[in-house]
């Protein structure tokens, strides 16, 4: 079988976004050729008569449903995605995403509230992880975002974070 259909098959079965290098390894082809074929697939699926799309997520590729199909898909899987993050969790994540690696005290300084329990929840959901310790008195823990974070918000990588004018 040719490269493109093989990639299509992998993108269909995978539960995790597959990076081009991993795809190349699986099909035994050059990463460059894989990227080329992925682009073609992406274009083909973008056509209006397809219900799926090739998405780029957290550094990898994957087949997913198109947002326009959501209403119908949700009839089949009711309540699948009913979870939403709280405002406090979202603000905390925003600070971590832009300021990482960042300590708890630094986050608290911006939000003006304690964030212990929010950090715990975010860590449990694997949106953040301990990214090291700061070279400062007490060696406080530094936090950073994870692949799970990118996946949840549908981002390719951190550079895709919404760009706003930075605070002066």
């Amino acid at each position, binding site marked *: 079988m040719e490269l493109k259909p093989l990639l299509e098959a992998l993108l269909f079965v995978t539960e995790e976004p597959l990076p081009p290098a991993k795809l190349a390894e699986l099909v035994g082809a050059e990463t460059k050729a894989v990227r080329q074929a992925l682009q073609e697939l992406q274009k083909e699926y973008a056509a209006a008569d397809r219900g799926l799309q090739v998405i780029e997520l957290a550094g990898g590729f994957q087949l*997913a449903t198109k*947002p326009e199909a959501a209403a119908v898909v949700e009839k089949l899987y009711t309540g699948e995605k009913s979870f939403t993050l709280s*405002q406090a969790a*979202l*603000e905390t994540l925003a600070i971590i995403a832009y300021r990482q690696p960042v300590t708890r005290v630094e986050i*608290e300084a911006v939000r003006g509230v304690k964030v212990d329990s929010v950090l715990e929840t975010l860590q449990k959901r694997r949106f953040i992880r301990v990214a090291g310790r700061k070279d400062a008195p007490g060696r406080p823990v530094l936090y950073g975002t994870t692949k799970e974070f990118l996946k949840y918000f549908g981002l390719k990588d951190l550079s895709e974070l919404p760009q*706003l004018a930075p605070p002066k």
Partner: protein
Amino acid sequence: MVDLQVNLPVFSGPFALLFHLIEKAEVDIYEISVAEITSQYLQALREMQELNLEIAAEFLVMAATLLKLKSKKLLPETVEVAETEEEEMPVIDSREELVQRLLEYRYFRDVAAELRRCEAAQKRVYIRSLGGKALLVNPDEEITLAGVTLPALLEAFQRLLTERERQPQEIAPDDLSVQDKMQAVLKAVRGKKDGVDFRELFSPQAGIAEIITTFIALLELIRLRKIVVWQSGPFGRLLVMRKS
């Protein structure tokens, strides 16, 4: 009986409440008057109290901060108030600082709003789920004990210990190190595509100390994602293999 429902804005922190007040009063952040915002803020806290809402300590800290800023303005400039503060939260000392902090907070509040939009968009996209059985892809942030639960691993370890306990022990010089054992385990699994039986990692002559050291080395290697442990089924053999 119909339940009475009261909808109140929930503030994620004192800055969120301050912003709510500033926006309600339609004042430019740069133009805020400390006296004005302080009285509005205190009024809001009073209303929250009347509704028997629990007010988090941070909201009171902000109230105190605002009052301090306000009183500072009333005092002659030369008077320095001796301060001994041990708060974890940075202290706001001037109106300018308050404005700075408000601006900074607003930035991240706006980012959070953007993230909320991303969240909503991504919720409409569905990805296949096979129920967690992909063999080739290991999410890099996960420690993989492929098909092996921690209790299963501990059970195997305990069995090994009880078996060995009965054998005559030779007291050897204590020259065991986890580092060495990690090397030994890695060497044992090198080139073995189908993995090595968990038991083979422990030599028959190994004493309790050596078994424990080897086990710690094994756990360390799992943590470092150098090896994976795999079990074919319940009570099946435990296989240790190198992670590709």
